[in-house]
């Protein structure tokens, strides 16, 4: 995992920060930090934060989420008991710097504000087994994709905690359209924060989901039986978001 010239690797209970040197093909270990505690602690997952000039990393270990500052390699925040059981994955909101989503073995997807680690901003409980993967859409962060070992992929619309403002911003140009927009918003308001679609094409546990980096409306999911399913955000929703 990395960005530019740096790479982070997670090994059992260590975070290793590697420096990729352009001249040579070698990577030099720049710094490392380790997690200490009772029992055998292992990192299950980690992500770069796309904000703060990529100086932050968040990791998940057992039921705890931790944020790290890569400059000092020290812990900056810690969400204890983020999930009832193992935390499987996490993802940063690409547009809101303090928001991150996590998922775990308690079938839940939780959204956190890292400034307030005592309770989640929002909790989704749609899956019926472990949630293995959670991904924000790169450009429309209200779209959240989750994959679970109940062999379902769920696409949810989390408008209330996305960077997208409620309703639409009214540009100066389309003041004339204002009226239409208003009525439109009103009719669409109740649709917010819901599950858009549940994809049940997979016959076995889904272990990975991700968005296409080319087309923001495309996503793929991979399941144990080797099936890769590519889906598209429903057209109606797409237009609703765009227009």
């Amino acid at each position: 995992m990395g960005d530019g010239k740096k790479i982070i690797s997670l090994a059992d209970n260590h975070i290793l920060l590697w420096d990729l040197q352009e001249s040579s093909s070698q990577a030099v270990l720049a710094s490392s930090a380790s997690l200490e505690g009772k029992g055998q602690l292992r990192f299950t997952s980690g992500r770069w934060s796309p904000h703060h000039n990529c100086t932050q990393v968040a990791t998940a270990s057992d039921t705890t989420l931790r944020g790290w500052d890569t400059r000092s390699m020290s812990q900056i925040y810690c969400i204890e008991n983020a999930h009832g059981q193992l935390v499987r994955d996490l993802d940063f909101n690409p547009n809101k710097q303090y928001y991150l989503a996590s998922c775990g073995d308690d079938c839940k997807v939780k959204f956190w504000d890292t400034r307030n680690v005592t309770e989640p901003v929002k909790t989704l409980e749609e899956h019926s087994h472990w949630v293995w993967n959670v991904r924000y859409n790169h450009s429309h962060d209200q779209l959240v994709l989750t994959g679970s070992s109940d062999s379902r992929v769920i696409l949810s619309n989390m408008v209330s905690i996305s960077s997208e403002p409620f309703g639409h911003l009214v540009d100066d140009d389309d003041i004339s359209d204002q009226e239409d927009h208003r009525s439109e918003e009103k009719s669409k308001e109740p649709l917010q924060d819901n599950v858009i679609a549940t994809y049940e094409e997979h016959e076995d546990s889904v272990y990975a989901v991700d968005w296409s980096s080319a087309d923001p409306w495309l996503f793929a999911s991979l399941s144990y039986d080797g099936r890769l399913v590519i889906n598209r955000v429903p057209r109606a929703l797409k237009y609703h978001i765009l227009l």
Partner: protein
Amino acid sequence: MAAAATAGSSPGSGPGDSPEGPEAEAPERRRKAHGMLKLYYGLSEGEGAGRPSGPDPLDPTDLNGAHFDPEVYLDKLRRECPLAQLMDSETDMVRQIRALDSDMQTLVYENYNKFISATDTIRKMKNDFRKMEDEMDRLATNMAVITDFSARISATLQDRHERITKLAGVHALLRKLQFLFELPSRLTKCVELGAYGQAVRYQGRAQAVLQQYQHLPSFRAIQDDCQVITARLAQQLRQRFREGGSGAPEQAECVELLLALGEPAEELCEEFLAHARGRLEEELRSLEAELGPSPPAPDVLEFTDHGGSGFVGGLCHVAAAYQELFAAQGPAGAEKLAAFAQELGSRYFALVERRLAQEQGGGDNSLLVRALDRFHRRLRAPGALLAAAGLADAATEIVERVARERLGHHLQGLRAAFLGCLTDVRQALAAPRMAGKEGPGLAELLANVASSILSHIKASLAAVHLFTAKEVSFSNKPYFRGEFCSQGVREGLIVGFVRSMCQTAQSFCDSPGEKGGATPPALLLLLSRLCLDYETATISYILTLTDEQFLVQDQSPVTPVSTLCAEARETARRLLTHYVKVQGLVISQMLRKSVETRDWLSTLEPRNVRAVMKRVVEDTTAIDVQVGLLYEEGVRKAQSSDSSKRTFSVYSSSRQQGRYAPSYTPSAPMDTNLLSNIQKLFSERIDVFSPVEFNKVSVLTGIIKISLKTLLECVRLRTFGRFGLQQVQVDCHFLQLYLWRFVADEELVHLLLDEVVASAALRCPDPVPMEPSVVEVICERG
């Protein structure tokens, strides 16, 4: 008669085929005559006393109506009816006319004799009247003579009569004068003797006369004397009044006399009230002293008794006396009294409330109710006297408030009892654990909890029921008849309690109990069963009991039994689901640790079933026993035959082999996928954390599903050596041997375990399965 006549008139004005010639004169006159006759008989035009069902008496086309207009009728007929119907109606009418004619003739014949006798009678009456006239004339002359005589007599007696009248007048005057002259001495004597009443009465009688004749010197003297004496009298009275020690009735007497002496009523009234206030305040002080800062010595009943007899009685006396004395004062006086009563009353109420508040924490409801009853009853008397002061209302309000607080108190009590029960259960659950025995009496505990809660509820109901007892004076107030029963007791107490119970139970699901350690699973199970019991029987029982006891008459909407039941059921379901999750989590943690911590690549050839698997089976059996204590068996799929061995041998030898054989040859990995996929197409999707039903099998199925799914997922994350795979195979077979009996559909267990083995095989670089026979031997040995 009128009807017959009207009917008779119609042929007269008909098309002219009437046989009765004399009726040729204008029909107007006849109608007029009819009108007058009707008027005479009180049959007003439209009233139709004889015709009950005249649709519209003014309808001109109504043949029998008073306003029948032949022209309109004919017009209508001609316009509306076809020819045939016209003919029909014509013949019909002719027939009717004939019938009427013959009717009339028979009527005339029948009544002929009566007419004749009537004529005779009238003739005889004429003769008699002539005789009577003569006699009346004679009477008139006699009367005139009598009048004459009487006038003459009265004229002669006039003189003497006048003289007698004058004499009588003089005599009366003399007696009055005598009384007046004697008055001062009498008054003094009265005052000396203390017969103030008598004195005041004399004074009252003489006053007017003296006032009138005060220009005469002799009368003047008398009046002066009288005034002096009266002043003295008034002074004495006032003094007595002010001393005030002699109690309310005597004071009242004093005031009455003073009033009669013409003292200013306003001032007296003020003074009277001030005195009364002094006395009542003393009562209040004594009550307050009783209340005291120290713990109340007398019980509440005594307190209210004291207050009732002392204060309320005093207030009653004062009010009665006041109204008697100052009735003349009109509304202003009444207002003054009302204000007075209100002020003191509110102070009294404040005291009573303080006392009752002290009682609030206490337990004895019957005493409280009796005290309230006394209090309320006492206040009804002045309430009648002082409607304006609203004392009775205020008292009722206090009683209501106390009742409401009581309800709240009981609800609190019930909740506390429930929580207490839960704590007991926790302890009881914890204790045997420590002793090493597995919860022996879960069912007993449940029964204990249920019965203790029920008895608490009943006790509360009984206690609250006292408020509505027949003999309690406030029980027939509308509040106690309606709102108290339905809103207070039924909704507030019972429904509120059941709801809060459900909430408490649900909080066990939501609380950080996610971590598993907070609530013992057995408690979850027990609560779930308790809620279910409530849903099936207890709620309806309690509500019926309440409705019966309180005869809820209020029409306000109440929570129906079904809603509560649904809530309870939901709670039970959530608890049970949570139980399944917690237990499943425990087992799956065990499995996960066992899979994750082991180095599967370098294990030795399996000789034994791993201890973890045995532990899993043991735990599952324990859970089975635990759940079996509280929940029924439930339905299994029919395919589970009684002999496990046979099923398994068949299964493992034929099917398992058939399935795995190709998959273990590395040449055909696609086939496995295909096979498993095809198989999955025909099997239903396994919903792992699906809600459970209320029976043992369903609960265990849920737990096992969760555990096995975990095992599956964990296995998929590891890489296995050959012996690792074989170990998994052995373990799975072992689980198969023992777990099938717990679940509703053993196919499910098979399916999941197959998955596990298949996954392990896929994660194995060197998949060489063990001989099924060897597996069996190992498992049987384990």
